[in-house]
């Protein structure tokens, strides 16, 4: 088992590395840049931003003169020593290295002075990648673009992820304590009214999704009955509805999975054997059927945990919860590269760890599963 865990952790590192690498390049391949906005920034301002965040650097002129020709355009890929500006004395200013031109800061007829910025070149992606990986190794994900560099990714996630995790834990507790017993009862009495009632509710739960259930619960319990707070995460009463919303949906999944598992198990010969032994029905269910019946739920638990612990965008938005899940959406939509990398590592790390825990849990539930 120890060797198995070590091996899995090593492969987890590899998996996360692959995910991070893919995300890194995919993010940058997505159309539009991080600083594109409805009001387009002046090339100077944009160049300042790119340089500040280490994704570009400036080309400086080495002498004075008046620009007669700009030889490249924004977006051009220049090679090392390629002339980019012609001055009135016939000489040129060339690029010190190759790269994609981010912006040109001067135009024809402008006067340039020595050491003045004349253009900005994007830092090659591979170089950005290597620099980024080096800092990721020390868990330094840099600063978020959305805070204009005033918040680190680490701080942003550290302030919000615990809230999402708290919500996720409550939701998971509701899901497990409601879903699994319901599924067990339904599975033990298939085609009974208990089964039909609970499975209809579960089916409704699965199809409803948070987007309907959330506002419904708010309307009934917060607006009309006034039992709970409408939104936020400040008081215990505010936490109940969001936890229920997320928990009920997952409870529905667990109930269905457990019912299916129970139906499978209860038909097994070894359950008949257990009856033949003269065991009380409760012992048969608890000791012989339960472990087999919850196996499908356990399989689902890994991704479900990773999913709930990182919060639910829908639930967090509906209930106004300051959790981390919003960043999965906004980070990507805003092309906030550092933030995206942060949440990608958070989610993939959680997913890998949860699946590992589930695999270990499996070994306890089913001795036929052997790890070595």
């Amino acid at each position, binding site marked *: 088992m120890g060797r198995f865990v070590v091996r899995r952790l090593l492969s987890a590192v590899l998996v996360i590395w692959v995910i991070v690498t893919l995300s890194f390049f995919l993010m940058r391949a997505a159309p539009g840049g991080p600083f594109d906005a409805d009001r387009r920034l002046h090339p100077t301002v944009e160049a300042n931003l790119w340089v500040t965040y280490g994704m570009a650097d400036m080309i400086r002129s080495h002498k004075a003169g008046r620009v007669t020709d700009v030889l490249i355009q924004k977006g051009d890929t220049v090679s090392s020593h390629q002339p980019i500006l012609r001055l009135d004395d016939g000489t040129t200013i060339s690029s010190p290295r190759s790269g994609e031109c981010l912006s040109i800061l001067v135009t024809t007829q402008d006067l340039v002075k020595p050491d003045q910025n004349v253009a900005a070149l994007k830092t090659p992606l591979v170089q950005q990648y290597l620099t980024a990986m080096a800092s990721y190794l020390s868990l330094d994900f840099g600063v978020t673009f959305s805070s204009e560099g005033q918040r680190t990714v680490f701080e942003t996630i550290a302030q919000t992820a615990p809230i999402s995790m708290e919500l996720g834990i409550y939701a998971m507790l509701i899901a497990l304590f409601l879903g699994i017993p319901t599924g067990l009862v339904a599975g033990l009495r298939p*085609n009974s009214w208990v089964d*039909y009632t609970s499975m209809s509710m579960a089916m409704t739960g699965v199809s409803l999704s948070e987007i309907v259930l959330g506002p419904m619960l708010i309307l009934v319990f917060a607006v009309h009955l006034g039992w709970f707070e409408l939104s936020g995460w400040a008081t215990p009463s505010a936490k109940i509805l969001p936890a229920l919303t997320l928990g009920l949906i997952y409870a529905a999944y667990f109930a269905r999975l457990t019912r299916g598992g129970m139906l499978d198990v209860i038909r*097994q*010969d*070894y359950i*008949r*054997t*257990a*009856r*033949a*032994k*003269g*065991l*009380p*029905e409760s*012992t048969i269910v608890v*000791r*012989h059927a339960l*472990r*087999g019946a919850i196996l499908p739920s356990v399989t689902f638990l890994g991704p479900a945990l990773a999913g709930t612990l990182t919060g639910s965008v829908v639930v967090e938005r509906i209930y106004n919860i300051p959790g981390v899940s919003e960043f999965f959406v906004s980070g990507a939509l805003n092309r906030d590269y550092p933030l995206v990398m942060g949440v990608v590592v958070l989610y993939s790390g959680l997913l890998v760890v949860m699946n590992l825990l589930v695999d270990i849990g499996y070994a306890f*539930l*089913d*001795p*036929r599963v052997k790890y070595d």
Partner: protein
Amino acid sequence: MTALSHDPLIKIRDLTKVFPIRRGVLFTTTVGSVRALDGVDLEIYSGETLGLVGESGCGKSTCGRVILQLQKQTSGSVTYRGIELIQQSRSQLRQLRRELQIIFQDPYASLNPRMTVGQIISEPLTTHGLATRWDKRQKVTTLLERVGLLPRHADRYPHEFSGGQRQRIGIARALAVQPKFLVCDEPISALDVSIAAQIINLLRELQRDLGLTYLFIAHDLAAVRQLSTRIAVMYLGRVVEVGLADEVCSRPRHPYTRALLAAVLDLDPTVARTKKHVLLQGDVPSPMNPPSGCSFRTRCPWAVASCAITRPKLQHIPNENRWVACDRIDAVDPSSESRLLM
């Protein structure tokens, strides 16, 4: 062979088990029914082995399970030492299960894969208060040795054993509660021939040493014949012939028994197969819609029109310890094998 006492250990009267067939998901309707047991009468005497034979689907396994009340009958009665089992409460029944045990056909599926062999065997011990925490281990060891396994096997899981070994575990488990009566539900049909023989020998030894009574269920006569005191033959939920094992096998009286026997006796498997096909024309009729009168008439070479009208009852054959349910028994010549081979 032990002599038969006159008071049966188990007495079965007019036992019927109907399985309804339902359709629909939310609003189910019963669209038909299967009569797995259709008026079965049997006695099982203390110390004997009653072989119960028939093709798959004839209701023999159901019969075994209803005797142990693992399934409840639709009507009829099963008494054990004069106790009407259907009238017992759940807890009374659990107490009786100490004395009535079963070994299943599939040694793979019938053992909980998530428990060690020790747990499987000791669970009934603790349930019935037959062992304390301290002597549990000792008792498990004794049982394992009794069935030819090693004490260290107690800490292993079922999937680590071969089929024969698993069946031994199943037997040990059944023996744990010191039963009086054991239903052996096709215990060897999933096993290789050599392994099956070992299990048969084990069962025989156990019967001799512990004075057990067996209901030995099998689908072929050969297996049953070695072990049984008496044999009952079932067809479509009915018992068609009962008698001493030697007599039934050497001189079958019911056409169906004859057909079964003819299939078994030939040692050349290819011949046996063709012969059987000749003997038993057509398929077993659907148990949902059994033939009227004698249910075997559709495949019986001796059948006449009257066979379709009345259902033949088990009749005692004079001068023999034998009962047969056939109205044409006089027409069926015990020696005319040729007729069967037409």
